[in-house]
C-alpha cells in the first residue's frame, strides 16, 4: 500500500501530540539568523499508520524468532525474553551514566559481577565493559598493547600479525591504531602455520590477533606454541573472542597464552543483534596490561559493617581509573543495557556455562554429520567438501561448495539464496576467504535436533535439485534476488530527492 514512510500525507499539523511548552516565545532567545526556516520533510503520520508501517516492514524481515539462523561466526542463538524485560526497568533505562556512584550501586554491582565472571571464564586478570562491539574491543585491546609497548620504550613495534583467515575487523582495528598488518597464510588444513608465524615475527611485532576455535570452527591445538613464538619475539597475543561460545569451562584464552581478549556479549551472552546491533565487546587482559584499560572500571570495597543494606551485600561499589588508562573509547561506560542482558543470561547458566558450550559443539558436530551423511537414495549431484578435515569441530564448521560449482555451475551464493526459500537464513557466505565457495554453519545450542535434522534434509534436497532452480533462487521471498551492482551504480541513498529539502 504505502511504499515508504514518506507516503504518509497527514495534514500540515500532523504529528505527535505534546504538552505545551512552559513559556511562550522562547524562540526569541535564539538569534534570528540561527533559526531554522523550513522544517525537515519528515513524514506526517499518525500512530496507527506507523504501527502498521513498521509491523509490515517487520514481516519482511527474518530473525531467529522466525527461523533457523545458522549464520556462522555470528552466534545467532535464542535471545531470552527475560533479558528484554529486565532492561525495561527504569533502573537501567532511565539512568544517566554521569550520576554519582551512590545513585547507581545496583548497576555497579552488576558491572562488577560481570567483570569478575568474564575474567574467570577467560583466564584474564582484569576486564572492562566499555567497548560497545567486538571490533571496538579489538581496537581497545590493541590500544592497550600499544601503550604497553610505548611505556616500555618499545616504540619500534609497528606490526600486527593476523592469519589470512581472520575476521576483517582484526586487521581494520589494528590499522586504526596505526599498525601495519602482516597477514600470514594458513596451513593447508586451515590451521595456523607455525613456520609462517616464525618467519613473520620479529622485533617489530607488536601483537598477533587470532581466534580459537579458528574461523573454520576448528580448535587450534598448537595455540600455545604460537603464543610462545610471539611472546619470545616480544609481541603480545590477542584473542578474538567471537568464538568463545565453544569453549566455556573447557579451556580459556589465559591457559592458551593470550594477553588480551574481547568478548562479544551479543554472541556468547545472547544480547540480541537487532539487524546489526547493538553489540557489546568487553575486553579482558592479563595483569601487565590492566593499567592501560579504558576508564572507569568498577571496583568495590568491603564496608566496615558487613550487613549494611541489601544492594551491595556489604560492599561499596565505585568507579576506578586504571593508572595509565588509555582514556575512553566510548563516551560513557559502554552498552550498559547489553551488559545487563548478558548478566541475566549468565545468571541463567551460572557455573553451567560449560553446558552451553557443550551443546553448541554438540549441535555443530551433529549438523555437520547429518549434512555430510545424506540418505544414499538421494540423487545428490555432488557433495560439498569440508573446509577443514578435522575429526570434530567446535561450535561451527565450513563447507566448500566448489565441487557443486564445478559440476553444475551452482555457487555457494546460489545455495545460500535457495536456503531462504526453505525458510532458513543462509549460513555465512564466503568467509573465511581461504575456503573456496565457503558456507559457514553455526547452529548454536538453542536449536533442537529436529530443526537440525530437517535442515540437513532440506540442504540435501537442494543439492539434488535442478540447478536452474537453485541458480535463480530465491523464489518465495518478499523480493527476488537483489541487484547489488545496480545499487552501487545508482546510489539512491535517500528519498526522493538527492538533496535535503531545507
Amino acid at each position, binding site marked *: 500500500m504505502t*511504499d*515508504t514512510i514518506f507516503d504518509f500525507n*497527514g495534514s500540515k499539523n*500532523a504529528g505527535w501530540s*505534546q504538552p*505545551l511548552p*512552559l513559556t511562550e516565545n522562547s*524562540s526569541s532567545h535564539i538569534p534570528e*539568523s540561527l533559526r*531554522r526556516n523550513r522544517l525537515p520533510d*519528515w*513524514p*506526517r503520520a499518525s*500512530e496507527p499508520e506507523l504501527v502498521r508501517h*513498521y509491523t509490515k516492514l517487520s514481516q519482511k524481515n527474518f530473525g531467529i524468532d522466525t527461523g533457523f*539462523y545458522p*549464520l556462522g561466526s555470528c552466534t545467532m542463538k*535464542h535471545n531470552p525474553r527475560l533479558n528484554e524485560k529486565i532492561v525495561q*526497568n527504569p*533502573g537501567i533505562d532511565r539512568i*544517566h551514566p554521569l550520576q*554519582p556512584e551512590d*545513585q547507581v550501586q545496583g548497576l555497579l554491582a552488576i558491572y562488577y559481577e560481570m567483570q569478575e565472571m568474564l575474567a*574467570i*571464564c577467560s583466564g584474564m586478570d582484569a576486564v572492562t565493559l566499555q567497548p*560497545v*562491539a567486538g*571490533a571496538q574491543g579489538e581496537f581497545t585491546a590493541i590500544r592497550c598493547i600499544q601503550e604497553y609497548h610505548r611505556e616500555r620504550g618499545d616504540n619500534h613495534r609497528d606490526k600486527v600479525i593476523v592469519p589470512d583467515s581472520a575476521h*576483517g575487523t582484526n586487521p581494520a582495528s589494528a*590499522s586504526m591504531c596505526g599498525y601495519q598488518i602482516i597477514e600470514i597464510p594458513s596451513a593447508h588444513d586451515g590451521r595456523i602455520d607455525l613456520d609462517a608465524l616464525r618467519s613473520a615475527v620479529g622485533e617489530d611485532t607488536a601483537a598477533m590477533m587470532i581466534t580459537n576455535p579458528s574461523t573454520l570452527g576448528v*580448535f587450534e*591445538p598448537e595455540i600455545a606454541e604460537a603464543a610462545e613464538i610471539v611472546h619470545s619475539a616480544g609481541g603480545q597475543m590477542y584473542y578474538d573472542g567471537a568464538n568463545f561460545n565453544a569453549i566455556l*569451562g573447557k579451556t580459556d584464552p589465559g*591457559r592458551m597464552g593470550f594477553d588480551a581478549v574481547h568478548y562479544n556479549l551479543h554472541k556468547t551472552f545472547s544480547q540480541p543483534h*537487532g*539487524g*546489526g546491533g547493538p553489540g557489546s565487546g568487553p575486553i579482558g587482559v592479563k595483569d601487565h596490561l590492566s593499567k592501560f584499560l579504558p576508564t572507569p572500571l568498577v571496583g568495590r570495597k568491603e564496608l566496615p559493617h558487613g550487613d549494611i543494606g541489601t*544492594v551491595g551485600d556489604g560492599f561499596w561499589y565505585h568507579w576506578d581509573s586504571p593508572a595509565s588508562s588509555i582514556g*575512553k573509547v566510548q563516551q*560513557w*561506560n559502554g552498552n*550498559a*543495557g547489553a551488559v545487563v542482558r548478558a548478566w541475566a543470561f549468565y545468571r*541463567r547458566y*551460572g557455573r553451567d556455562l560449560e553446558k552451553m558450550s*557443550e*551443546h553448541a559443539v*554438540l549441535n555443530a*558436530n551433529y549438523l555437520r554429520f547429518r549434512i555430510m551423511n545424506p540418505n544414499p537414495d538421494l540423487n545428490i549431484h555432488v557433495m560439498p567438501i569440508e573446509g577443514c578435515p578435522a575429526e570434530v569441530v*567446535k561450535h561451527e564448521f565450513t563447507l566448500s561448495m566448489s565441487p557443486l560449482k564445478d559440476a553444475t555451475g551452482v555457487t555457494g551464493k546460489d545455495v545460500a539464496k535457495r536456503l531462504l526459500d526453505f525458510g532458513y537464513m543462509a549460513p555465512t557466505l564466503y568467509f573465511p576467504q581461504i575456503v573456496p565457495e565457503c558456507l559457514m554453519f553455526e547452529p548454536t545450542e538453542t536449536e*533442537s*535436533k529436529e530443526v537440525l535434522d530437517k535442515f540437513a534434509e532440506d540442504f540435501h534436497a537442494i543439492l539434488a535439485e535442478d540447478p536452474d532452480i537453485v541458480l535463480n533462487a*530465491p523464489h518465495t521471498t518478499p*523480493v527476488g534476488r*537483489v*541487484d*547489488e551492482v545496480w*545499487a552501487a551504480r*545508482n546510489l539512491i*541513498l535517500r528519498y526522493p530527492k538527492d538533496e535535503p529539502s531545507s
Partner: protein
Amino acid sequence: MDQLPNLGREQEMLDIMGVSSMKDLFEDIPVEIRSEGTLPLPPPQTEEEILRDAERLLGANVNLDSRPSFISAGLARNFVPSMVPMIATRGEFLTSYTPYQPEVSQGMLQAMWEFQTMISELVGLPISNVSMYDASTSAAEAITCAVRVKSKKVEMPNTVYVSELVPPHRMSVIENYTQGVGIEIRKIPHDEDGFLDLNLAAEASGSCAIYVEQPNAFGILDEGLLRLREVVGDKTAIIVGADVTSLGIVEPPGNWGADIVVGEGQPFGIGPTAGGPIYGIFACKKDFLRLMPGRIVGQSIDTEGKTAYTLTLSTREQHIRRHRATSNICSNETLIALMGAMHMALLGPVGLETLSTRILSSTRMTIDELSSVEGLELAFPKSPVFREFAVKVPGKASEALSHIFELGVIGGFDLGEWWPDRGSWILIGCDERTSESDISLLKKSLTSWVEESS
C-alpha cells in the same frame, strides 16, 4: 534448564554420529590447556530468581524519572512514545542481524533507508549512514574520514582543529581514534562568552578539518559559526557536532556549510540507558561518501525490476577491505537507530518543532528562575543557550549537588569532573519533561544550599 532444547538428548545425538561421549567432542583441546573442574561460579538460577535479583539491584538505582532531574551533559532525559520499544522489539527486528541477505531483510533495510532520509533532512546534508556507536565515536570517525578525504588536497595534511570545549570524555575518544594514524589535533579556544574565537579558528584554514559543536558543552548556540565557512575557506572540512533535538528551531549545520554532521541520536528513540546502547548520527556531503565509515543502505531492484533495498558501498567496510577499511565498525547500533526512526516519524516536522521549543522553553524558564537566586551566577549570561547552561555556585559544585540530592533533586553535572578549574560550576540540563514544579524544587534546594553554606 529451559533454554537448551537438546538437554537430556545428548546420547541420542551422539549415537547417531557414532561418537561415544560428550567428552570426545572436546578431545581436540590439548590436555595441557584444558580447564579443570567446574567454573568457579555460582549455580544456575531460574527466571524467577534472576528477575527478583535484577529488580532488587536495578531498583536500588536512582532513576531520573523518580525525581526532578537536571543532568544532561550529552544525553537526554527524553520521552519515548510507547509504540517505539514495543514495535522495534518485534522478534523479526530484534533477533535479526546484518542484512547480508537482502531478500529476507527488506524490512530493516527499508526502515534504515528511511532513517537515512530523516537524518539527511534533519541536518541538511545529502548522505547519512545508519548509525555509529555513539556521538563520540561518530565525531572521532568523522575526523579520520575528513583526513582521508582532505589530506592530499590541503596544506596541512593530517591536521585537524577542534574546539577546546569538546567534553573531555568525547575528546578522549577522539584522541584514541586519531593518535595512531598520525593525526595532529590542535585546539581552538572560545571567548569569555563561550563563543568560538573566529580569529583563531582562521588558523584552521588549510588543515583537513575543523570540529565544532553547536550547541557546545555549555549549551551555547554560537551565531559566529555561521561565518565559519568564510573563515576556514573552502578546502577545510567543517565537522559539526549537533544536538539533534535543537534542529526543530535551530538552523541545521548543513545549511551553513558543514561537510559532516555528527551527534548523539539517543534523544530520538531510547532512554539514556546508563550510557548505552545509544547511537551516533553521521551525515555528510557527497565527497565523503566513499571514504565514510559505517553502513549505508541503497535502493535497488530485484530480478523483476521491483524496488528493493540492499546494503551498498560495502567495499568501504572491514569485511571486504580489511585493513584498508574506512572503519573497523561491524556490529553497530541498528536496532537503536530503528527506534530513532520510529520516534522521528512519530514526531513529524511539527512535533520536532514543538519538541525543540519545549526544551528551549524549559531551559529559559530554569535560567530565569535561577537568575533570581542570590549567590548563583550564570557562567555565560549573555549567550543564547539550548538545553543546558552553566551556573557558578559559591563553593564546590559537588557539595551543592550532594546537598540538593538529599532534598530530592538530581541537580545537574559537576563541571569540575571535566575541568578541574571549573569545580564550582554546575551544568544544568533541561528538557521537554522539565516541569515548573521541578524548576521550583531545584531553585528551592539550591537556595537552601547557598544559604546554609554562606
